[in-house]
């Protein structure tokens, strides 16, 4: 449905339509020459990824299968350990809660950004980006103050059946994570929503649709690429969160990254930590594949909406 709509709406003749057809050669293209040599532009980034990402990752996978001895011993140990399932389940649940909460907060916010004037939009954007630029540690310590007993948000603890603060509890961790991850939801949503042609809604209401119907049948489907990419991004980032749960949570709320941390730091069990990382990685990859299957390819990678 999105394709159909973008086919009719987004490609409606506009001032840019003719220019886009035959792009002029940029100076850079002239220097680099033909198509083949353009790939040279990728070389630094690819090299960087190979050295600083692919190689260490390969090393971790290698260790998972070879350290201390070759085989799948690390994996069978993990599967035999009842805590693995509990920690994995808790991590998935927390990530899901965080992703959904973030979406519920970010959706109206991003919508507001698309309908207000440029000045208000700049303010709203700054509100999202300022915390984003503030050190993660500073924000986590601020949350410690806010969430502790007697702290303003700590009072909320009683609502969750705990006398006193939210520090050291799952809701406390979730609140901290939502704040850290909110920009990752707002930005993709805003980028998609700002591309939605709102004349479609006018057309729909002209044909007799109510506001809710307009939203449900037109706006929501059109914003889905942003919803999917934002939710996936936040969910995947949340899966690997370490600092926030470590500082705001307690050992009782450990997530996967913390258990991996304990394996490396305390047990010096690089193989076991590698195996757990590989499981987390495989799960994340599987999730991305699933998402890109149900949505348009690329949405999951944050290339939403505007790639056509």
């Amino acid at each position, binding site marked *: 449905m999105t394709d159909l709509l973008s086919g009719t709406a987004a490609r409606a003749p506009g001032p840019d339509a003719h220019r886009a057809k035959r792009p002029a050669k940029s100076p850079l293209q002239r220097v680099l020459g033909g198509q083949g040599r353009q790939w040279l532009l990728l070389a630094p980034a690819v090299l960087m990824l190979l050295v600083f990402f692919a190689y260490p990752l390969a090393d971790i996978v290698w260790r998972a299968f070879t350290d201390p001895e070759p085989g799948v011993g690390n994996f069978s140990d993990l599967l035999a350990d009842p*805590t693995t399932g*509990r920690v994995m389940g808790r991590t998935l649940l927390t990530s899901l809660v965080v992703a959904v909460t973030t979406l519920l907060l970010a959706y109206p916010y991003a919508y507001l950004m698309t309908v207000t004037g440029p000045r208000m939009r700049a303010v709203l954007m700054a509100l999202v980006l300022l915390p984003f630029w503030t050190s993660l540690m500073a924000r986590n310590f601020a949350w410690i103050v806010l969430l502790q007993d007697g702290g303003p948000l700590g009072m909320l603890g009683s609502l969750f059946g705990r006398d006193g603060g939210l520090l050291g509890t799952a809701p406390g961790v979730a609140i901290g994570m939502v704040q850290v991850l909110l920009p990752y939801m707002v930005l993709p949503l805003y980028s998609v929503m700002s591309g939605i042609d709102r004349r479609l809604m006018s057309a729909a209401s002209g044909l007799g649709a109510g506001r809710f119907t307009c939203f449900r049948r037109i706006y929501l489907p059109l914003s889905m690429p942003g919803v999917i990419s934002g939710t996936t991004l936040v969910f995947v980032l949340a899966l690997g969160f370490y600092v926030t749960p470590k500082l705001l949570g307690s050992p*009782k709320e*450990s997530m996967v990254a913390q258990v991996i941390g304990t394996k490396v730091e*305390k047990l010096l069990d690089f193989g076991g930590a590698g195996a757990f990382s590989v499981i987390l990685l495989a799960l994340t990859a599987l999730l991305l594949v699933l998402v890109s299957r149900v949505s348009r390819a690329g949405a999951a990678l944050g290339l939403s909406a505007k790639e056509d």
Partner: protein
Amino acid sequence: MHFPSRRLGAATVAIALTMITAGCSSGSGSDSGGKQLTFTSYGSGYQEAQAKAWLTPWAKEAKVKAVQDQPTDYAKIKTMVESKRVTWDVVDTEPFFPVGACDKYAEKLDFKKIDKSKFPEGTVSDCAVPDAMYSLVLVYNPKKYPNAKPASISDFFDTKKFPGKRLAPGFATGGAIEAALLGDGVASNALYPLDYDRAFKKLDTLGKNLSFWETSAQSQQALESQQADMALVWSGRAYMAAKNGTEYVPIWQDNMLAYAVLMVPKGAPNKDLAMDFIAYATNAKSQAAFAEDQPYAAVNSDAKPQLEPLAEEWNTARDDIQEKGFYQDVAWWAKNQDEATKRWTGWATG
């Protein structure tokens, strides 16, 4: 998750700067005669005081260039030793690591240079000597318990008589297992080998009243904001909190004495210098200087630090505190740390 990239960026800049300045700097800074020692510790005021009391004066005297790194990281030591690219010479650690990995990840120490006769009994081993002492002590908020006062670790677990929030170390080696067994009636000289199941069962009785600290800074923060009515914390942090105006009362009975050690990673590039430095850091004068600066007790029995009254109150080298306390069994922990950590993680994440 922002850190790796930032650190990477910093590293890139650092490498670039090094490359640019390398040409100019060779030949200057000559009074060290090319000798260099890298000391690694846990950072913050602790490491600053170590540098001030030990490293800087020693380096000046020995004409050695002193370099510092932080924080202590066992995984890093393991990786360095296994890849035979060791860059640290002396490291401040918990004793379990070098004692458990003696001659594997830690060098044997040279006791011709280091005088081991002055250390408390049982704190010296082939690969580690103590450099700072403290204890895990039970403290309570006197305002919370104005009438009947807690008097022993059993009271930590008695939420009927003493309702309120409890705080304990959130990692296996921290002493919560020992405290649980003490609270369950085990005598301090009969704790080891630790009965995990019994300890976890006892800790479970505290339920939601119990929360954990993971770093000692957290424990101090929790004391200062009065988050806990009773807490098992390191004496030094309780002292710092007291210094900042928070009044918690210590119960020294069954305090768990513990110490940090200096070790030399296996294959350290400047092993001989490392031995000289360790000898210097643990002598009476250096130890006194450190104890005067930081809330840790001296390990050298000849050290006579001049302490303020409040610092003296929390000074775990005091005879009466030593008599009421017991030493955490480092040898046992060195052998069983992995198993205990696995059991702890299994219980804690449950």
